[in-house]
């Protein structure tokens, strides 16, 4: 039976850039344990010599001609930005003031 600790939940949430509330941490800890217990059945399957699925469509990568085509205009690319200025995306300070 898988058991995901509070600390592990916090670690995964950090990797996923999610802030979880205390009740969420408890709930997700329980639910992840439950789901991981369920998927543990795959460990019983012998997959020796079986290749990982690399392509679903059974085909090699398709490459297109590297020819110029019209891209998204700057105006369109910025049209959904929460904040922009002079053609740039604006974000909060990367290094907070000390």
């Amino acid at each position, binding site marked *: 039976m898988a058991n*995901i600790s509070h600390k*592990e*939940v916090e*670690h*995964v*949430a950090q*990797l*996923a*850039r*999610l*802030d*979880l509330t205390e009740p*969420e941490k408890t709930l*997700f800890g329980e*639910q*992840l344990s*439950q*789901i*991981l217990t*369920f*998927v543990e*059945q*795959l*460990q019983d*399957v012998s*997959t020796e010599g*079986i*290749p*990982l*699925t690399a*392509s*679903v*469509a059974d*085909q090699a*990568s*398709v*490459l*297109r*001609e590297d020819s110029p085509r019209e891209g*998204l205009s700057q105006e*369109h*690319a910025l*049209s*959904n*930005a*929460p*904040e922009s200025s002079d053609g740039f*995306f604006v*974000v*909060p*300070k*990367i*290094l*907070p003031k000390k």
Partner: protein
Amino acid sequence: MALFKLTLKELQEKFTGGEVTAGEIARAYLLRVSQVEPSIKAYISVTTKEVLLGKAQGIDVGLKAWRKTEPLMAMPIGIKDNICTKGMRTTCGSRMLDNFVPPYDATVMNKLNAQKPLIIGKTNLDEFAMGSSTEHSAFGPSRNPWNQKHIPGGSSGGSAAAVAAEECVAALGSDTGGSIRQPAACCGVVGFKPTYGRVSRYGLVAFASSLDQIGPITKTVTDAAIMLNALVGYDPLDSTSADRDFPDFTKSAKKKDIKKLTIGVPEEYFAEGLDSEVAEKVQDAIAVLEKIGGKIQAVTLPSTARAIATYYLIATAEASSNLARYDGVKYGFRAKECKSLAEMYHSTRSHGFGPEVKRRIMLGTYALSAGYYDAYYAKAQAVRTMIQRDFDEVFKEVDLLVSPVMPTPAFQLGERLEDPLQM
């Protein structure tokens, strides 16, 4: 007969034959949507009366010069709200994309629009297509038109409900782990997931890229074939798009000599947990196929029992990676008053995503994290190959497989929200 009651093929014939105009079709559906939508809630956004009538008028006037129609011209179609529509809000059923207006069209939209359909609106879905009931939509659930206490299925539940309630004659859905087929089954309409690679995914908001595929939801199989003809084809903008010829699917949908077909019935799909009512109906259908001359053959797909666990791991792992793009920088929701970039990422994602999406991101992130990759994701990819081989083997012997779409009839709203294994 009221226009909205017709199938796509029937409506197409009336329009092509000059019996009805695009304007008449638009008005009939505007009226239908205004009557039915308040109780069904199939749509997140509905095209305004002015825009729709303007489009219809453009078709009726233009037709005099074009002198030819297209198969989907003036046909009222619903689009799942995870398919990018230029200039038309595309929310994915999420607060994260509440205000997102795509600056480009998905390839399937370019293909449809070339035939001048009437796009009725954007249909409801579980947030980012994660769910099987539409109850995980940030905009509230849609209702099953046959019984409004029940779910329409999901994640393309809005599309299935819209077709079943005749709020459009056909709709687009997307299917990752059943999201076209299951809601179609819940609503008693036809749902078709094409083979991966047939239909371009360019402009479909990504959930699990190795499984996602766009397909039609319609009233009849012939209608699905008409839709499919419009959607398929190689697209240089999707590197997984198959560069292969395709037949005229309406010809393949015509009544064939079923005596030449061997129909496989996989025993694992009739195992424990299958509702007796569902089992009975599927057996009835198999009996019909046999009666009209099909050769029924019992087959076995031994890896079936591992499919759900395999799906959970692959879909959530790919989702956790795909959904990393929602960071509040380029589009969509951004949390306010954040002092640093890191705080903005965290706060945006925590407030923008709903619980089901967070749960799946957490599971996928865990499965891909250092030390667990081989045990979970890689293992699932190997089992996936075994599942694939099961099908390859069986299709050496049979032409098609018959199975239930889901193990139970459409359940009631709220009945299964608490169980994370019912995702």
